């Protein structure tokens, strides 16, 4: 089992979600996060330029069985990139091995609980 965490642009959420649903990955957790990477975003507040050090992003978490790892990653890669070339600030995908997964309702464990 894998835990896939993707940090993406806020405006890409709808598209990524749709692509995941189309690929039959329908169990996801979404949160608003802030952070910094390479991207610097200049905001203008009352005529004053402000470079905030924390940029809002959306984080998606998906736990899946190994067979779905590439499907999930490809769906995100395809939709979260800006244009064909991509742009700084498009985000990252982290993949971790997932040791256990337990469905609270039934107590089931492992792959079938996902």
């Amino acid at each position, binding site marked *: 089992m894998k835990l896939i965490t993707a940090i993406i642009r*806020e405006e890409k959420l*709808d598209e990524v979600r749709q692509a995941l649903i189309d690929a039959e990955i329908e169990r996801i957790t979404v949160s608003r996060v802030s952070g910094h990477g390479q991207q610097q975003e200049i905001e203008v507040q009352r005529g004053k330029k402000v470079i905030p050090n924390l940029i809002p992003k959306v984080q998606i978490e998906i736990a899946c069985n190994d067979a779905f790892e590439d499907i999930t990653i490809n769906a995100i890669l395809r939709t979260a990139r800006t244009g064909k070339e991509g742009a700084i600030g498009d985000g990252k995908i982290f993949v971790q091995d997932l040791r256990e997964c337990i469905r609270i309702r039934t107590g089931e464990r492992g792959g079938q609980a996902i």
Partner: protein
Amino acid sequence: MKKTHRVGRLTALAALLAIPTALWAQTPATPPAPVLDSGVTAWMLTSTTLVLLMVPGLAIFYGGLVRTKNVLGTMMHSFVSMAVVGVIWAVCGYGLSFGPNVLSGFVGWDSGLLFMKSLDEKIMTSGIPEYVFAMFQGKFAIITPALIAGAVAERISFKGWIAFISLWILLVYCPLCHWVWASDGYFFNLGAKGAIDFAGGTVVHISSGFSGLILALYLGKRLNYPKLSTSPNNLTMVLLGAGLLWVGWFGFNAGSAVGSNLDAGRALTVTQVAAATGALTWIIIEALVHGKATSLGLASGILAGLVAITPAAGVVAVPGAIALGIMASVGCYLMITLKAKLGYDDSLDAFGVHGTGGVIGAIGLTFFIRDSWWADAGTKVAGWGISDQLLVQMKAVGATILFACVMTLVLGFIVEKTVGFRLKESDEKEGLDHSLHGERGFGLNNLN
């Protein structure tokens, strides 16, 4: 009945023909200068302020209904109307609306009304400075285009919106306002006592509601509508906005009496009753249909009741207000249900509430007019009855719908082809707040 009606039309025609002379001899025939009435003026100053309060009220109401990424952009649609129309109205909008007939009565105008110059010393016969009346009317002009924004929320460019409301005010609102409320306007002189539109059923609600519907159809649905969820970001804002609108509406309706008198008291009473009845009706419908009364339903019912009583506030009494409140909520509820079936994207139900409620009020009021009004109408045209007035109301409503729809389609087309109206797909996905204004409405989720 037909005959009496023709007589009405003839007098209106005669009035129209007499206008050119009136244009040149601008000073009214009655020489004694009106005296300022401090009581009336105080109430009209208050009403003017109350009506302006409705604009931020509407901004908060609409702002709460959209998705988080569009909250500021949506509130800006209302707020920028205060800026844009606030200037246009003072420069020429008031003159186009309330000046003496020009262009065979299509609009009003008098060169003295440019920058409201001729108002500087003027006290009206109602005892208030004309400045106060002009500013009171100016708030109506500000809120009307702001209402349209609800139909096309979450998908229009800010530039396009500013261009559209500037044109719309000059070419749709000012003519309509002139026809309905100027003493030499077309609708003001229909039938025995004119088409009844106390505070803006046709001018404000029908015109904005139907214009919104046409724009929503012309500019198309939001991306992925209705597949993706478009649930409100903040229903507490929606309730606050609806509350502010209710409060402001007392200025809107009771102020439209342009007096601190019995008419104002009647208008205030029926406004209160209709809003309450509308709200109650809507939550009862919801409780019966879904088993739960929602805050959004309550807020929608308040608005439906207020919209329907707007044209009627001068002529109906409490039973009429209750009837109109019920009819409005049932009608608007059905229209919004129908929207889901037809699939057009009137995002925040500007047409569903203002268009539908406006028509229900403007037509429905005919059946609840108080006896003294009929008696008075009878002295002007003998035997003036419900069917005569119904025809007058239907004419005014029909003409308003036709005019608003055609003009909005033309203006929408012009704006789309010149400065651009529909938002770019990437901007729509990112949200109005950041893509158009470089800001975010809610900072709470960002740790900066």
